[in-house]
Every structure is written in structure tokens, then in C-alpha cells.
């Protein structure tokens, strides 16, 4: 009996040790692959803005009877301007004191830098100017481009209202790339994009860099022309914002006309849970194996591509006014009527990310090692990619 008990103990001990070892190896391999932040999506609301009643009252006293002017980097009549127009309609309702929304100062030019420079140094700093800042602005700052006349960290960041954090890579059916393995072996896949350096372009380049896809990326199309080109067979696929894909091209999915390959973010997209992420694929397929350098590159790509539309005020805006406007943007996005109108007219679901989260992201980007930023620049440029 004693022997039997000893054998059982030994066996249990061995099994336990083996199990611990296996778990350890698993964890170690994951650690080697980098600390993948597969965290659940954090959804922010107006309640995340910590504003006191006294601050709200002070803001109300200021904004009553005032007019807020807008500064925008975009063209009148563009899709981005449409977003601004819808916001200008709803936002006053939620700002204490209900200020009027004044005219929009369109300052196209310099890739958005002219309007950012204007907002930083020439717009009123009392809280009566809101700027629609281009996604290229913080890139220009981080990469120290010519023409930047502002300190990104000193803007009064209000919010990001349009995340593009879930980008979807898909191809049309019937071209022999119905599985990821087939896609990896395909000698040439024609992918359409609007321009070099666009988030969607960067996503495809990341695929080429990490997984060796033979994408022939053709830039120059407009968003809608890409759809038409896919329909007539000129293009094989594209990268699209998952939200708008599910609104505008759901019928393609339902009719089995497209194959979804991967999503851009570290965690899976809740509306398409069966589609793997690029992080999962990279861990599985990259050769040489996925490492910290790759993860750092991915993190930069996430940070630089996650937020696409910002609202900011000039520096030194009194805190209570900035907080009141931040909270108003959050409340506006929670307004069902606004949300539906925005979604219907722009094809995007508005989502609130508070200004302090944006600032954290920008700081993280600014503090990165130089070589990582250089690698990311190569990833987003037109030249051939370096070898991993």
C-alpha cells in the first residue's frame, strides 16, 4: 500500500512538474514574442471626464451668449467636413451655456499643418475656438517635419471622435486566395488604396514586411473607386475600416463575394470574432520568429493609426472650459440621434476617446527609440521594404 501511495505521489509530482514546465514554456515563448497587449477594448464615455459642478457652472457662465468658431484642415464639402457639420449641429446642446456655433474657417494646405499652426498660435485661447486636426499633424510633429510650428503636448486636446482601430484586410472570392496559406503563396495580389502613407496602406505594408505577402499596392483611387475596381476585377482586395465595411459592404459578405483575412488591432473585433488579428498571424507565421522589435513596430502602427479624427483647442484654455467641452463631446456621441445621423451620413460609427488618452498616446510615440520610428517611416513610404 505504501509503495502504491509513493508511486501515486511520484506520478502526481511528475505530472505536476511537467504541467508547470509546459505552462512555463508557453509563457516564456509568449514573453519572447513580446508583451502582446491583448486587452479588451476600453470604451470611454462622458463620465470619464472628471469635471466638478463648480467647474461646469464656471464654464456655463463663460459660454452663455458666446460663439464658438471652428478651424478645419479639410475641404468644404468633403466627408470630414460633413462630420464637422453634424457635430456643430449637436454639440452646443451639451456645452454648458449652449453657445452658438459660428462659421468654419477652412484652412486647407500644408497637409493640415497650416490649420494646426493657426490653431496653436493665432486662434483665441479662451475656449471659443475648436480645431479639427488632421491625422497627419501628429505624425509631422513626431517625425519633426518642416513647417511644424507647434508643440503637440501643449494643445488642449478635446477628443478623438472617429477611431479607425479595426482595419480589415479582405480580397474578393474567385481569385484563388480563399485561405491565408493561399494568400501567402499567391505570386501577386492587386490591392487598392487611396494614397501612400495612409493607414490602410501601412496595414498592407505591415503584412508584406511580417508575413511576406506579394501585394501589388496600387495607390491613387478614391474610396469609392476602389469598390468599383474590385467589382469589375481590376483590384483583388483592399483594407477598409471594419465598421464602415460592415455598413457599406455587408452584402458582399452575405453573398460570399469576399474573403476576410485579418484585422489590424491586437484584440479581435467584437463584430467579426472569427477573423484573426495580425498579431496572431505574425506569431504563428513569421520567419524568423516574431520578436520584440516586430512588436514595437506594430505598437507604433497601432498608436499612429488608431485615432483618425481629433478635436483640439489652442494651448492654455482654462481647464473648466476644456473639460466642459470634452464632456459635451462625450455626451454628444452618446446621443442616439447624433450617433444615427453621423453613422448614416458618414458611414462611420462615432466613438469617444478623451483628450488625455490622446496625449498619452502622443507622448508614448514621442518617447520611442529613433530606430523604431525610422523603420515605421520606411514601412509607410513608397520605397521597397527592408528585410526583417
Amino acid at each position, binding site marked *: 500500500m505504501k509503495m502504491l501511495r509513493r508511486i501515486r505521489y511520484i506520478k502526481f509530482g511528475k505530472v505536476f512538474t511537467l504541467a508547470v514546465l509546459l505552462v512555463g514554456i508557453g509563457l516564456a515563448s509568449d514573453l519572447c514574442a513580446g508583451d502582446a497587449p491583448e486587452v479588451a477594448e476600453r470604451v470611454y464615455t462622458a463620465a470619464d471626464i472628471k469635471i466638478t459642478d463648480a467647474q461646469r457652472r464656471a464654464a456655463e457662465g463663460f459660454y452663455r451668449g458666446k460663439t464658438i468658431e471652428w478651424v478645419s484642415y479639410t475641404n*468644404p464639402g468633403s466627408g470630414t467636413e460633413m462630420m464637422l457639420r453634424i457635430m456643430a449641429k449637436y454639440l452646443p446642446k451639451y456645452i454648458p451655456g449652449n453657445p452658438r456655433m459660428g462659421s468654419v474657417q477652412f484652412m486647407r494646405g*500644408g497637409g493640415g499643418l497650416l490649420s494646426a499652426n493657426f490653431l496653436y498660435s493665432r486662434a483665441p485661447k479662451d475656449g471659443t475656438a475648436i480645431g479639427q486636426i488632421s491625422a497627419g499633424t501628429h505624425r509631422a510633429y513626431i517625425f519633426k517635419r518642416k513647417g511644424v510650428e507647434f508643440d503637440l503636448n501643449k494643445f488642449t486636446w478635446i477628443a478623438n471622435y472617429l477611431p479607425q482601430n479595426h482595419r480589415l484586410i479582405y480580397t474578393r472570392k474567385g481569385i484563388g486566395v480563399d485561405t491565408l496559406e493561399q494568400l501567402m503563396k499567391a505570386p501577386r495580389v492587386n490591392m487598392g488604396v487611396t494614397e501612400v502613407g495612409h493607414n490602410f496602406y501601412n496595414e498592407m505594408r505591415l503584412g508584406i514586411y511580417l508575413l511576406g505577402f506579394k501585394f501589388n499596392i496600387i495607390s491613387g483611387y478614391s474610396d469609392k473607386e476602389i469598390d468599383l475596381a474590385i467589382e*469589375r476585377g481590376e483590384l483583388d482586395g483592399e483594407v477598409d475600416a471594419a465598421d464602415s465595411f460592415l455598413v457599406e459592404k455587408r452584402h458582399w459578405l452575405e453573398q460570399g463575394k469576399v474573403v476576410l483575412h485579418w484585422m489590424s488591432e491586437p484584440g479581435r473585433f467584437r463584430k467579426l470574432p472569427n477573423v484573426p488579428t495580425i498579431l496572431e498571424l505574425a506569431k504563428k507565421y513569421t520567419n524568423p520568429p516574431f520578436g520584440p522589435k516586430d512588436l514595437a513596430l506594430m505598437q507604433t502602427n497601432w498608436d499612429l493609426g488608431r485615432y483618425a479624427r481629433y478635436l483640439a483647442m489652442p494651448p492654455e484654455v482654462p481647464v473648466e472650459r476644456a473639460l466642459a467641452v470634452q464632456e459635451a463631446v462625450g455626451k454628444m456621441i452618446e446621443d442616439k440621434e447624433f450617433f444615427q445621423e453621423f453613422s448614416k451620413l458618414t458611414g462611420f460609427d462615432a466613438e469617444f476617446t478623451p483628450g488625455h488618452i490622446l496625449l498619452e498616446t502622443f507622448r508614448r510615440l514621442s518617447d520611442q527609440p529613433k530606430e523604431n520610428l525610422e523603420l515605421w517611416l520606411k514601412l509607410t513610404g513608397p520605397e521597397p521594404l527592408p528585410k526583417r
Partner: protein
Amino acid sequence: MLDAAMLDAAVSAWFVVLQPAVFGALFIGIIIGTFIAIAPQGLGTPLAYSLLIPVAVTLPPPVAIALLLGMDGVTSFGDSFLPVLFGIPGGAGSQAIILDGAPMGRRGEARRALGAGFTASILSALLSVFVWILAVPLIGSILPLIGSPELFLLVLWGMSMVSVMSGSRPIKGLIVAAFGLLIAVVGMEPFTGVERFMFGQLYLLDGIDIPVITLGLFGIPAALNLVVRRIGKEQPAVKLVGSLWEGIKDAFRHLRLVIQSSLIGLLVGFTPGLGAFIGDWLAYGFAAQTCKGARETFGTGDVRGVIAPDAANSALDCGALIPTTLLGVPGSLTKAFFMLALIMMGITPGPDLFTKHLELLFVMIWVMFWASLFGGLSCLIFIKPFAKIAELPYTILTPMIVGFGFVGAFGTNRHEGDLFVFLLSGLLGLVMMRYGYPRAPLVLGLILATLLEKYLYISTQRYGFAWLGRPQIMILLPLVSGLFIYTLWKGKQSMKHAQEMALREEHAADPPGSQQGSSERGLK
């Protein structure tokens, strides 16, 4: 035939146009268009577009379309005032009207001539709208065959308008068009992000705003020209007498001529490159050959000589919208401006408009319908006050043009650089007029450059040089090249013909080859 989706879009567009904001914009457009067409020297639709585009693109697309097409659609009606009352051409397509319109005006039949012209224009425009509707499903069926290489070729075909715009100066026209192409490449190249001709100026990163250039190019010379010619002070109009009703009856009496001339206008308008300068002459010539006794009476004040070119001019204006909207190839210079406005609103004319903005396409069609109807009727009803606009002195018009020009140029981006570009373009416009360089090809080059480069780039990236071997290209290439050479040749021929005809009229001294028409004369 129209399928269910098209019918649905057509019906919903009908109600969109009837919305107060859209209909209001349509009326404002009609008023502006009438003013522009009748104002001394015919200030010109390009100038009106240059002034309106910066405003229009800030409006919701249906409102902007109503404003622009309301203005554009009505100019062909107002074009008749100047030839009949002053014996000088109004817009680009109202050269032939002088031959019979001016003698009628002089012998006390101005109201009859205008009544006949307006009625013929209304009937012709409505017929054209009907043809446009029919063209939608027809062109829709061939759209799947049109890829980027074919679109490149179609835009290239649009460039053949240079030959028409240049009149008897094709080389100068080509030089100017090439210069337009060159200006258009300034800034960051959108495909690969390469910076071109920026000279370190951040202002130039996104390129130069085309409406700012056109404002200077057309606005400043037009304003100065009015001063030089002292219009409204030294050129008296004939008396507005005669029977308007008789003119209306004339148009119905010659309904066959109206239809015949409309079809000619439509055909010319639909063929990019033929342009407005040929349509009225072709219709006039055809009427002269087919109408009974025309050989003796045409040129002496025959009302049929007014009906034919007026109907053709009106149909041409609408016909030019068909390739502009459905194929993305501008049918005329003014339609190139309209195309620019659409692009600035994020709507690419051609297959994109056809498939993704079908409702907007029908909004355009219904706007043209209402613009034709109201534009024509208002010309008939308010003939007397409208005729007074033609006598407005330059002392009122010049400050207006200059003022609106400055506001328009600065208002686009609120950047002082735009004011500099506006003034520089104005100076360039003056120099070009002085040395006989047509300005219209420059605008065409500017507008079409982006599309040409884009489709060529995409075609080459996608297919290499194999795109030249595509069956559609094999058919289109000789067709387009042939038409290009034909229009070049025909343009020169028709200019000669037009000059000969115009010499018969003492007032029609301006060579119709220039897009700016008579407005250029003063500064030469």
C-alpha cells in the same frame, strides 16, 4: 430602360429637388445665371463658376448642384439678349444668333426674336433632359467594361477640347494647356507622396486651388475689359419692341426645326471636344440648307435663323452634361468647371457618380429640368427688366467683379497666399489676352491633369504596358485619336467659316474662336 434602383433614385431625387433649400438655391442660381448671361459683354459662365464654387462646395451636395446647374442651365437662354439688342455675341454658343437676331432687333422685332429664341430654348432643353434620362441606363450597361485605362483615354479625349477652345491658334492653345498641366502638378504627388515644385513653401504642399486661379484668370481681365470698352455708356441697345407672342408662336410653328436643331446640339454637346462654338453654327448651316427659302432670307432677319441656333445652343448645354456626369469627360469648358465642383465635393463624375450617387445624378437631371423651365419662362415674363441688365454701366459691374473676386479668393482657404495667386493669375490672364493666348485651355489642363495622371498611374501600376493591348483600348484609341484630329481640323474650318459669316454683320467683329468671346476684344 430604367431599372428599379434607378426609378427609386429618380423618384427620391425629384422630392429632394422640391425641398425648399434646394429649390431656393435653384432660383438663386437662375438669377445669377441670367444676370451673368445678360450683363454687358456676357461676363461668362467660367467667371460665374469661379465665384460660386468656393461658396457652393460648403453647401450640402443637392443644394450646391441646384445653385451651380441653376446658374449654368439658364445662361443659354440669356445668351440671346446681347446678339439681338446689341448685335454682339453673348455666350460662347450665341454667335450665329447675331446673323438674324440683330437685323430683327434693328427693324423693330426684338421681342419677337427673343420670344422665338426663348421658346425654342425651353422646348429644346426639355427634350435634352429626356434624352439624358434615357442615356443613364444605356451608359450604365457599358460601365462594367470601363476600367482605369479606358477612363484615362476618355479624359484624354476631353483634352481634345483644347483644339476648339484655341480656335485658329491651336499651338498657343496646346502651350497653354501644357502650362495648365504643369501648374496642376505642384504640391505633394498623391500616389507616392513625392513633393513637386514646392520650393520649400508649405503653402504649396496641397497644390494651388483651381478656383482661385480661375477667379484671377477670368475675373480681373473681365473687370478691366469693361473699363476699357466703357460698356453701358457708349454702346446703345436697340429698342425692345415687337410682339413676344408672335415669337412664341413662331417656335411652335417651326417645331420640326426646333427638334432638328436640338438633336444637332445634343450630338455636339455629347461629343467632348466639339464644344459650344460649333453647335449653333452647325444648326444654323443645316437650317439654311433645309428650310424653304432660307438661302434668300437667312442673314436678313429670318426668325428661323434665331430658332435654329438658340435651340441647338440650349440642347448642347444640356447634352454636354451627359458625358460629364456619366463618363467623367467634360463636354465643354463650363462642364469642366462643374466637374471640378463635384470633385471638390468628394463626388467623382463618371462610374462613381453613376453607381454610388445615383440619387445625386437624378438631382442634376431634375435641376436642369426646372432650370430650363423656369429660366426660359422667366426670360419670357421678365423680358423688359432683364433687357435693362444688359445696359448696366461698367461703373457698377467692375467694382462688383473685383470685390467678389477678392472675397472669393480669400474666402476659400483664408490664406494670404491665395490673394497672391489671385493677383498673379489676373496678371497672367491680362498678358495672355494681350498676346492672343486663349485662357480656357489652361483651365482645362488644370482640371483634367489630376484625372489624367491618376488613371495613367493606376493603369500602369496595375497592368504595366499591357493595358494598351486591352480590347476596349484597341477600339477606343483610334476612335479618340481620330476625333481629336477631326476636331482640330474642324475647329479651324468652322472658325474660318464663322469669321466669314460674322463679317456679314457689322457688329459681329469678334472671332468666335476665343472662349472669352467678345470680352477679350477690348484689351487686344
